[in-house]
C-alpha cells in the first residue's frame, strides 16, 4: 500500500514538475490521435452521410460491415498494417513502419468505421425529418448531404469526440506499427505498458492519470456540447 502511495506521489511530482519526457509523450499522443481523428472524419463523415441518404446496391452489406468494423480488434489492425508496411509488404518502399505516420494510419483505420457508423445513424435520423422539405426545395442529393452534416454538427462533434476517445486509449495497433521507440513513437498507452512491465510505476501512473484526465475532459466536452445544442434547440 505504501508503494502504491509512493508511486502516486512520484506521478504527481512528474506531472507538476513538467517533466520533459512526460510532456513529449503526451504531446505525441495528442498529435497522433487528433490527426487520426481528423482523417477518420474526412472519410467517415461523408461515407456515413452517403450511406444514410443514397440507395445503392450493396448498401445494406456496407452498413453491416461498418457496424462490424466498429469493434475491430486493434491488434489485428496493427498486424494487418504491419504486414502491409514491412519491407516485404506492398507498402514497404514507403518506409513508414515504426513512424508516427504508421500510428496515425492505424488509428484512422480503427476510428473511421466508428465515425462512419455513428454518422450514418445521426444523419439518417435527421434525413427522415428533413427529407420532404429538402425535396420540396428541390435540393440535390449532394447538397442535402452537406445540409444534413451541417445541421447535425453538434451530434457529429460528439461522434468525433467518441472517435478520439477510442484513438487516444488504443495500444494494440500503435505498439505493433509504432514499435514504442523512445523519442520517436512512444505514446502514453505504449509507455504505460512498457513502464509497468519494467516496474517503473511512477511514470506509468503519471501517464495513466493524464489519460484518465483526457477521457474525463472528452466526456465533459460531449456533455457540454449536448447541453449547448439542447439550449439552442439545434439538437
Amino acid at each position, binding site marked *: 500500500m505504501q508503494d502504491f502511495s509512493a508511486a502516486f506521489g512520484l506521478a504527481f511530482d512528474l506531472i507538476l514538475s513538467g517533466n520533459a519526457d512526460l510532456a513529449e509523450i503526451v504531446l505525441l499522443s495528442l498529435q497522433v490521435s487528433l490527426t487520426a481523428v481528423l482523417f477518420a472524419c474526412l472519410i467517415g463523415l461523408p461515407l456515413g452521410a452517403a450511406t444514410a441518404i443514397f440507395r445503392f446496391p450493396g448498401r445494406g452489406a456496407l452498413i453491416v460491415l461498418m457496424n462490424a468494423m466498429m469493434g475491430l480488434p486493434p491488434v489485428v489492425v496493427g498486424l494487418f498494417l504491419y504486414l502491409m508496411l514491412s519491407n516485404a509488404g506492398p507498402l514497404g518502399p514507403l518506409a513508414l513502419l515504426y513512424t508516427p505516420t504508421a500510428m496515425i494510419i492505424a488509428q484512422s483505420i480503427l476510428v473511421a468505421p466508428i465515425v462512419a457508423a455513428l454518422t450514418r445513424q445521426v444523419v439518417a435520423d435527421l434525413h427522415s425529418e*428533413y427529407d420532404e*422539405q429538402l425535396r420540396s426545395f428541390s435540393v440535390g442529393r449532394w447538397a442535402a448531404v452537406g445540409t444534413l452534416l451541417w*445541421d447535425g454538427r453538434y451530434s457529429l462533434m460528439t461522434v468525433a469526440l467518441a472517435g478520439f476517445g477510442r484513438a487516444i486509449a488504443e495500444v494494440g495497433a500503435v505498439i505493433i506499427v509504432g514499435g514504442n521507440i523512445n523519442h520517436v513513437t512512444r505514446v502514453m498507452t505504449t509507455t504505460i505498458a512498457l513502464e509497468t512491465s519494467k516496474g517503473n510505476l511512477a511514470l506509468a501512473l503519471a501517464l495513466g492519470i493524464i489519460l484518465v484526465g483526457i477521457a474525463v475532459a472528452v466526456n465533459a466536452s460531449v456533455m457540454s456540447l449536448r447541453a449547448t445544442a439542447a439550449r439552442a434547440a*439545434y439538437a
Partner: protein
Amino acid sequence: MPDGSHIVDLRACTPGPVREILPLEARGLTYEAGGHRLIDDLSLRFEDSGLSAIIGPNGAGKSLLLRLLHGLIAPSGGEVLWRGQAADETIRLRQAMVFQRPVLLRRSVAGNLRYALRHGRNGAAGASVGSSVEAWLTRANLLHLADRPARLLSGGEQQRLALARALSRRPEVLFLDEPTASLDPTATLAIEELIGQARAEGTKVILVTHDLGQAKRLADEILFLHRGRVEARAPTEQFFSDPENDNAAAFLAGRLVF
C-alpha cells in the same frame, strides 16, 4: 430621425407574378398502398391564379393529393403535367409547399430564410440574400426574432416562418397542407394574411384545410375530395350554398361521410 439605412425594401419580397408553369393537370392519377387505392383515377386541372381549397373528410386523400401534385411521391398510375409536360428542375423550383407541421432547419430564423433563398431558382447570394431575408422577416413580423433558433419559436411563429420561407422562393404555385391546424385564432389570422397577400400578388395557392370557415374566407373555388376522388368542384359561394353532391352536402352539414 432615421437616416434611412434601416428602411426595409419590401419590394425584395414581392413574389413573381408570371405564371409560366400553369396549367397544372392531373390525368388519371392513382395511388395505391397496402392494397388500398387511396387516390382513385383522379383527373383535374388548375388553370388560373387564385386560391383553390381542397376539403373533405379524414382519409379522403387530400394531403396525399398535394404530395402527388408537388412531386414528393410518385403516383402508382397516371401523370401530373405542368403546361403539358412532366415536372423538371425548372418547374420544381417554381413551386413550394408548407406542411401541417413545419419542418424548420436547425438554424436561426434568418438562417432558415437564407437557406431557402440560396437554394431557390435564382440562387441568390450575398447582399441580395440579406435584403430579401430582412424583407421577408418584416413581412412575416419575425424580424425581431431573426437570430433566434427557429425551433424555439411558438407554433404560430414557426408556421409564419415556414410560409415566409416558402414564399421567399417566389413560387408560382404554393401548396399548403393544413397550415393553420392546431393554431390559435390570432396565429391563424396572421397566416391567412400572408396567404391572402401571396394570392393577391399572383401566386396560385392550393390549400388543404379542415377549417370550413377558412375555406369560405380565402378560397375562390372549393374541391370536395372523397375516397380519393374529386366529387364536387365549384366556386366557393356556390359550393357552400348548393353543393350539388350528397356527400359534400352531408360533410357541410357535419354528418359523417363514409
